[in-house]
């Protein structure tokens, strides 16, 4: 079942840590958000394969926005 990974804070995409097709483990960073001088990883909630990265570096995302899809 595909699962959307959502941003848990509002911030700017600082780094995309995983790419489409990557196999990630639970807790692995998928992207890193920068917000208020802090770098905060958005982690994979479970193991799986990244089907889609929905954001680009430099993009502002709101809390709750989908940042990637995990399969």
């Amino acid at each position, binding site marked *: 079942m595909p699962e959307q990974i959502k941003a848990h*804070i509002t*911030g*700017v995409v600082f780094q995309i840590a995983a790419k489409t097709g990557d196999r990630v483990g639970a807790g692995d960073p998928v992207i890193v958000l*920068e917000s*208020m001088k*802090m*770098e*905060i990883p958005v982690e994979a909630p479970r193991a799986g394969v990244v089907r889609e990265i929905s954001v680009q570096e430099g993009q502002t995302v709101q809390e709750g926005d989908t940042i990637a899809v995990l399969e």
Partner: protein
Amino acid sequence: MFRAVLVANRGEIARRVVRACRRLGVATVGVFSEADRDAPHVRDADRAVLLGPAPARESYLDVERILDAARRTGADAVHPGYGFLSESWRFAEACARAGLTFVGPPVEAIRAMGDKSHARRLMAGAGVPTVPGSAGAVSAAEAETAAAAVGFPLILKAAAGGGGIGMARVDRPTDLAAAFAGAARRAQAAFGDGALYLERYLERPRHVEVQVFGDGRGTVVHAHERECSIQRRHQKLIEESPAPGLDPAIKRGLTEAAVAGARAIGYANAGTLEFLVDAAGRFYFIEMNTRIQVEHPVTEEVTGLDLVVEQLRVAAGEPLRWRQDEIVQRGAAVECRVYAEDPDRNFLPSPGTLSRLTLPGGEAIRVESGVETGAVVSVHYDSLLFKLVTRGDDRDQALSRMRAALDATAVEGVRTTLPFLRRALAHPDVRRGALHTQMVEHGAFR
């Protein structure tokens, strides 16, 4: 004195510097990003210049745009506040080349203290105790030998770093290699320099720092100590002066070491030497901040001095007007930092719009705020909204006034550290002054 001072900052500290300039009858030039057009610090200044877009590197960190703003407005001095360019020796040097006075220490002092491992060596040379550690930055291979000499647990720190970034605690020799690689990568990403040094990790130390002030003519004094042990991610949340229950002999040792250290590097203007104090009362220099600090008001409240006014006077070439024996702590003062962070989610940032802001007032309460109702709290900047400072005849009174001040404060629209601060101020260990830097991470205030 200066014609006009450009205040190269935003938020509460920019407003604080404008106030100090006004006391001296000096004109002020504010700067702002597109995100800060309506910010109070822009209105406070006599005139203000737009620097550029919201991201700090295109506005508050853009040296050329700031120097250009100074040229166009006829400012002859720049006050950097804290954060942003305040500890950039390159910025201080660029100001000098542009014919502007940088309100701060000499370029060489900023540079020497900016490299944290170099700073430790310099201070050790001046007789200031430092935490046992490597003699400087080490390679991954050298770290093995250095770690064996220092002992475990130890902490890896970025040589170019600050603010807790690139730090990693290592409990066992087998964890060293992986921790080193991770910390070096984070330091490289954050500071463009992956150099690391290592230090003994102290269990439950207090963070006590000493405010120093030099005039560049050989005079260095201290304005006593501040206790800043309540921290998260190595960043302070509550500070006070005096440090509660600090043994007078330890206090004397700290202040003498701080003055000796500042003298050894030819220090001028305001600076702070930070120390860790262990349970046995041994103290160790950790770093020097070559700027005015966020928590400077607690020192002002107990000494009656105006540190920012004096920064401007000394930068303008006036001799320091304070004699050491005239700088006396009277009563006690405490500061609470209200950040747009969620204390119940490990202090995650909480940007947004302040739909409501109620600030306290009254006797012995000082509010330093950079925001007002309706303000947009941006993802681009530090999360500090405002500081509350209370004074009392003694610590109990200062704390009790702070509890009342916190209860009279309300913020809606973003999550803040207010609930955390209320819990901390009610905590028995805080009430009796039994503090250490690991209280927050140990969950004392949940």
